[in-house]
């Protein structure tokens, strides 16, 4: 900076001019913005203007639980401003959204929102804030594009009038603004099988059977190359033989039958066991989708349960006798081509050991006749005899019942035979015979003596 009073040639009036110049210069120095950087804004109607953009993929399927990220941007801007040297820096900007609160509203979208009003603070002009909206798409949602309303509420300062004559105070005037911003959510269509009915064929322990599920596509998508299967949750009790079916095309409201073959572990208790209907399909764009599992039950029957009703039989030792053994099917499926067999031992020897009695229906009893003999038995002992029944199940598979037992009591003979076989009785009889013989001999001797006396 150069200064004009540089030599002695300055006249007296020049000093005064110099002073005036310096004062004016000092005044300008006071007004220089570089020393008090603040601005005020002309009343051009500036205010915050928020816009919402959803981030990422907002396509969801019915039943999905989602977290949708929404980016809020303040596009409000100031179109004119002036330097406000006496205002502290950053005191006021009409384009700043103050204390922004975001409230999502599902409107007509088939979703359940699980987000409270969210506070995001101040959003200055061209600034951004991000909120996450939590929710679930309803199970029965119709595919389509749905708006989610993002209601943002905030304040902004719309004016700062000077309130006294000295212009040393300002009064901030706030406005509240509520904006409803649209965000987009897309509900996609899918293949959604629903079970109409379930049937079971020969699902009994120890063999294989079929589970048949009639399903309807209650979704809105057409699946191509559809594969459906039934998967039991217990893969020890159940072993898949045929895991699923190929349906090809499966359009909305179409029905199909899913028939799978499953082996049931032996000794499995009758009941309904958890399983899921699942699968996959190709959509029209060739993208593979997994079908959401549908819970179902696999009902296992008791099957044909054969019991030997006969517990105790009695035979005599030595003789070949006919015994009647009664069997009952206490299960819930018939035993086809049932054939009973008894298994002897060293003492009880079957002469005829097998009897066929055709179909033994649930709750039905039939009696089989066998001929047995007891070889050198102990009289009075109850011998055990094993028996089993061979039959065919509903699918023609050969089944064998659990081994059953019944007792055969070998009873001592009664009457003369029983007496003659008893040594004590024999001794007594021998004694009686001896006495009788003696008596007869005595009588004979007496008569002979009488006859010899003249």
């Amino acid at each position, binding site marked *: 900076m150069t200064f004009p009073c540089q030599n002695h040639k300055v006249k007296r009036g020049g000093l005064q001019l110099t002073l005036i110049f310096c004062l004016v210069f000092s005044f300008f120095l006071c007004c220089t913005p570089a020393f008090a950087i603040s601005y005020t804004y002309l009343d051009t109607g500036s205010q915050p203007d928020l816009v919402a953009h959803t981030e990422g993929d907002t396509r969801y399927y019915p039943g999905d639980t989602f977290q949708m990220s929404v980016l809020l941007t303040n596009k409000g801007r100031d179109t004119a401003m002036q330097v406000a040297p006496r205002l502290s820096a950053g005191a006021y900007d009409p384009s700043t959204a103050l204390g922004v609160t975001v409230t999502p509203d599902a409107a007509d979208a088939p979703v359940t929102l699980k987000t409270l009003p969210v506070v995001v603070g101040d959003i200055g002009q061209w600034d951004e804030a991000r909120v996450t909206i939590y929710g679930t798409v309803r199970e029965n949602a119709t595919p389509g594009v749905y708006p989610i309303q993002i209601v943002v509420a905030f304040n902004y300062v719309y004016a700062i009038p000077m309130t006294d004559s000295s212009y040393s105070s300002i009064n*901030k005037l706030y406005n509240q603004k509520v904006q409803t911003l649209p965000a987009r959510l897309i509900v996609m269509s899918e293949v959604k099988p629903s079970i109409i009915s379930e049937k079971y064929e020969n699902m009994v322990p120890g063999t294989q059977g079929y589970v048949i599920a009639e399903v309807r596509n209650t979704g809105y998508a057409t699946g191509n190359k559809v594969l459906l299967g039934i998967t039991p949750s217990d893969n020890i009790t159940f072993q898949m033989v045929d895991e699923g079916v190929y349906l090809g095309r499966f359009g909305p409201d179409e029905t199909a039958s899913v028939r799978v073959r499953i082996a049931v572990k032996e000794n499995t208790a009758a009941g309904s066991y958890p399983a899921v209907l699942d699968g996959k399909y190709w959509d029209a764009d060739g993208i593979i989708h997994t079908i959401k599992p549908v*819970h179902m039950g696999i009902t296992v029957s008791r099957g044909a349960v054969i019991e030997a009703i006969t517990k105790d039989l009695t035979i005599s030792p030595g003789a070949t006798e006919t015994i009647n053994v009664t069997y009952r099917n206490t299960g819930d499926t018939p035993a086809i081509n049932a054939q009973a067999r008894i298994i002897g031992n060293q003492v009880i020897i079957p002469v005829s050991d097998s009897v066929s009695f055709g179909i033994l229906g649930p709750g039905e009893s039939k009696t089989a006749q066998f001929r047995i003999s007891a070889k050198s038995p102990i009289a009075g002992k109850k011998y055990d005899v094993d028996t089993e029944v061979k039959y065919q199940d509903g699918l023609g598979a050969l089944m064998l019942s659990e081994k059953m037992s019944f007792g055969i009591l070998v009873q001592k003979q009664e009457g003369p035979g029983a007496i003659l076989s008893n040594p004590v009785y024999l*001794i007594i009889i021998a004694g009686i015979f001896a006495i009788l013989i003696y008596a007869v001999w005595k009588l004979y001797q007496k008569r002979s003596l009488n006859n010899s006396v003249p």
Partner: protein
Amino acid sequence: MGESLYMRYRDWRQIVLVFLVLCTGAGFCIIPCQAGEKYFSGGPELFVSLDSSNELVPGTTTDIPLVLQNKGKITMEFYNYYTIQPDYIPTTAKFATVMLLPGNAPLKVKSNPQAVGDIPAGVVVPADFTVEVPQDAKAGHYLMQAVVTYQYVPVVEQQSSTNIEYYFKDEKVVLPVHVVVKPMVDISVENTDSKDLHAGGEGYVTFTIRNTGNDTGNRASIFLAASAGSPVVPYSDGIYVGDLPPGGTAEPRFKVSVSENADPTQFYPLDMYATYNDFEGNTVQSPTISTGVKFGEKVRFERTGPPSVLYPGKTGILSATYRNSGNTTVYNAQARISVIAPFSSDDATAYLGDLLPGQSATAVFSVKTDKGTTIKAYSVNSQIQYTNSDNTAFVTENIPVIIDVQPESGNWIIIGLLLIVIILGGAYFWHRRKKTRAIN
């Protein structure tokens, strides 16, 4: 020279004057920068929201991320050259501490109060809390309370152009936090039927389950799992029970086995839970509950009666009487002996039939004793095979049967015949003597 001095003096005065004017101008410039503002405000205005879903799941421990926002507004500012710029803005919540209280929500807050520092106006501050939602928490909408304590400066008094004094005020606000406890299926066991179940056996346990929750369990399955170390083990883990509405019951029946050494005086634990489709169609698992299963004592048999007597070199009858000394009826019981030298048998099994508790049955076996067998008592192994009510076969542990080997005794028939011969001989001699007397 005098003019020169005057001129010199005048120049010096001029320079000083210019310097003073410039200093004055510089002072004007500097003063606004040192001036301050005085604020008027209602103080901090705090709000709270959740940075997550407000849905809480019973039986879980969940984080609740709170977000605090200060919406405090300055309504008026005074400004002059002599005001000292205060250090504290009245809208700033200082030294804020947040405490989350359950309010009317049925849950426990596990976190201590969180110090979040200063919260200036327009700023959001996070505060994370951990809550535990009890398993039996009733579904519904609840209001938790976020209690925020802080200080702020409502009044600033400037004593002079160089002194300023702050007055801090303690403030406490209670902010509602809206949470939703999700409807869930919550199962409880009302009855357990485990009759015919005993230690060392297997059988069925039928549970009466009630849905005490608020959601309908669509296509529900009940799962049973053995607790760690429990002697009761399920054969299959799940039973499908279909739809289970709130208050509804189901009676899943599970096949289980019980360890042989399990104590029948104890209830042993089992874990149980349900899986189902919830009201939103999602597959959900209910909270796991524990239940106890009672069972009877182990099936026991005892041998009663005197030991059987056998003779060396002879085939004799080994008779053993077994008593069902347990509390369980056994079916189709068969006794089997295992003999080793000096015994042998080809008739080692006997049928006992059904035995009620306390009932006895005798098994008879034909056993041959070797010649030269030492005269003493022997123990022979025996076992009983039986079935339970479900026709499952079991075999007992060894039940010793005592055989008393004694010296061979005389034959009763021979003794009898000898007696007859003696009687007949006596009768003959009596008759001879009588006859001799008569002749004499």
